[in-house]
């Protein structure tokens, strides 16, 4: 089992699909893995009256967020028999259609990866001090609200 190292979670700008492919590929020597579960958050063009969201600018209370990500990872490794876990979250501007969050879990049996991935996503949305500023077409903005 890979220890929950204090890996960098934050990346500047969107998360690139080829980076995700690289993440998947890196597991092809971990022969005990039977299942990967991947969650990707993509920026939506939500409507706001006449306007729509063109991008989200993410800011964070970085030191606290990094501690919280580390805690979430450690808790998940304790609760689920995971072989690997990776979390990436964007900072700065991410346009609609681009990816701002990736949670990637791997386990021997599928249920553990699936359940862990879902729980980690929920905890990130609720517990990590990150804020999304939704930038509208007309350059006005509003603060994103998580459901």
């Amino acid at each position, binding site marked *: 089992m890979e220890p929950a190292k204090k890996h960098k979670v934050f990346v500047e700008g969107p998360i690139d699909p080829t980076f995700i492919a690289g993440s998947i590929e890196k597991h092809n020597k971990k022969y005990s893995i039977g299942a990967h579960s991947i969650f990707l*958050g993509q920026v939506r063009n939500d409507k706001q009256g006449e306007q729509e969201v063109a991008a989200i600018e*993410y800011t964070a209370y970085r030191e606290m967020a990094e501690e919280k990500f580390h805690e979430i990872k450690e808790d998940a490794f304790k609760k689920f028999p995971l072989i690997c876990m990776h979390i990436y979250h964007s900072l700065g501007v991410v346009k609609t259609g681009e990816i701002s969050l990736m949670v990637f879990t791997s386990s021997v049996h599928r249920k553990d990866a699936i359940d862990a991935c879902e729980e980690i996503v929920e905890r990130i949305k609720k517990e*990590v*001090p*990150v804020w*999304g500023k939704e930038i509208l077409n007309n350059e006005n903005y509003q603060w994103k*609200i*998580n459901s």
Partner: protein
Amino acid sequence: MEINVLAFGQVADITAKSSLKFSDVKNTNELNQLLLTIHPELQNINYLIAVNKKIIRENTELHHEDTVALLPPFSGG
């Protein structure tokens, strides 16, 4: 005695600064009252308070060089 106050999201929109310094504030209640006096619009925002990166739910004593963060609802992901 000096404390650092960090403002994020909607709170930073109101304070217009992301980092503020205060002197001689005994506890978080006192800090809150002070902030609301300077920025009455903060009354409309549901922010949490973290002292040295730990969210506190009750009035908490402040010490020299403590960092207090004003955290509006999180919206990452």
